């Protein structure tokens, strides 16, 4: 399935749609609070969906590696984590640019901002851990163990903790909706762009990660033959 091209075309079409309709779609005036910046919904929020998807794929391949130590699984696990971190950073940056105008500062110590920063730190530690191990077999195995452990520690806490505290994001204590969406502020027309945007960005993330993995596998093969 990963080699087929229909989903890559779908990804391209969806993202073209997102990038045009994202700027054209009618948005509610929302008593002047958000104005046009609400369009960031189509770019900032899908980054997190994409990051979570990529990390989930990464941990699945880590589990598969531990069950059957095939180096291929390890490459998948590593590259999906790496692409996930890139999307996490993009999510932070798109959020910070928006927050600079809406909240008055790029970083206001919101629980979700902090949670996202922690997520990225945890996965950066994964790369440092891998870098500090020289034996290839050991590196893959211990990397996989840490990947699973970190994932299990991180995801309950970024799903549960921010909902317990007050937050500027939707979905905190005392505000409605989940962390992704505030149902009061979105219209049906916006959702018609938002859902394709999520799918499009996730497909792009998977595409990048799978390309990187394939490149990696080819390089390793070449090295093995030399």
């Amino acid at each position, binding site marked *: 399935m990963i080699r087929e091209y229909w989903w890559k075309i779908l990804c391209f079409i969806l993202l073209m749609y997102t990038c045009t309709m994202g700027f054209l779609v009618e948005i509610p005036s929302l008593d002047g609070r958000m104005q046009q910046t609400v369009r960031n919904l189509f770019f900032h929020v899908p980054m997190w969906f994409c990051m979570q998807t990529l990390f989930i794929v990464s941990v699945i391949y880590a589990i598969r590696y531990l069950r059957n130590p095939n180096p291929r699984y390890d490459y998948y696990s590593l590259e999906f984590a790496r692409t996930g971190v890139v999307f996490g950073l993009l999510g932070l940056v798109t959020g910070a640019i928006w927050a600079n105008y809406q909240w008055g500062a790029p970083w206001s110590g919101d629980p979700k901002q902090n949670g996202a920063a922690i997520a990225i730190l945890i996965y950066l530690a994964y790369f440092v851990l891998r870098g500090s191990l020289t034996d290839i077999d*050991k590196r893959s195995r211990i990397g996989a163990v840490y990947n699973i452990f970190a994932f299990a520690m991180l995801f309950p806490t970024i799903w549960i903790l921010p909902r317990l505290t007050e937050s500027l994001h939707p979905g905190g204590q005392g505000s409605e909706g989940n962390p992704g969406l505030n149902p009061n502020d979105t219209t049906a027309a916006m959702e018609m762009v938002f859902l394709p945007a999520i799918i499009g960005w996730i497909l792009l993330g998977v595409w990048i990660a799978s390309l990187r993995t394939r490149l990696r596998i080819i390089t390793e093969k070449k090295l093995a033959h030399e």
Partner: protein
Amino acid sequence: MANGSAKHIITLIKKDLLLEIRQQYTFYGVLLYVASTIFVVYLSMGQPEEDVWNALFWVIQLFVCVNAVAKSFLQDSKGRMLYYYSVAGARDFILSKLAFNAMLMMLMSLLSLFVFTVLLGNPLIHVLDFIGISFLGGIGLSLIFTFLAAIAAKAQQQAALMAIMGFPIIIPQLLLLGRIAKASFSPVLQAGLWQMVLLLVGLDLLIILLAVILFPFLWKD
């Protein structure tokens, strides 16, 4: 089988205890670490307000835990590890380490709480509650760092790796502990307290489960 593994675990804990008693310098080293860190804080801050007191307590617990737990996979040589592996198995081994470190951290929490109240004053209203919370926190910290120490023991630059891997992972738990602990500073009970305590206990159980499942993979050398 269950009976046998319980016996193995108890024997391994006894072994760790015996090692600790024989090589007392490590224990006293951590103790001195606790005392001198808190003394440095006292000299630079005097007696802080309760919010600062609470935050400092948990940060110092974190550093004490890193120091107390980091060595737990280093003191045994490779040959001896192989011996434990063949005699007791990986699961019993990690369970015994988790239990031993949890007990060690409970003791350390109690001691640092004592030094804290002596030097930094005692803003606590519910002292017993706070002791309970610090036990809970000590157990949680020790569980996470025991498992990370097991990972770090396989790599170079263990001390640096412990900090790099451990600090981001521990932040949510520390935040949760800080919030729970606030209950023992105020006479009124906070809403949602038990929910947070349950979350923390659930997290601890998750760590134990993961450690039992994942540790055998760390051992396959």
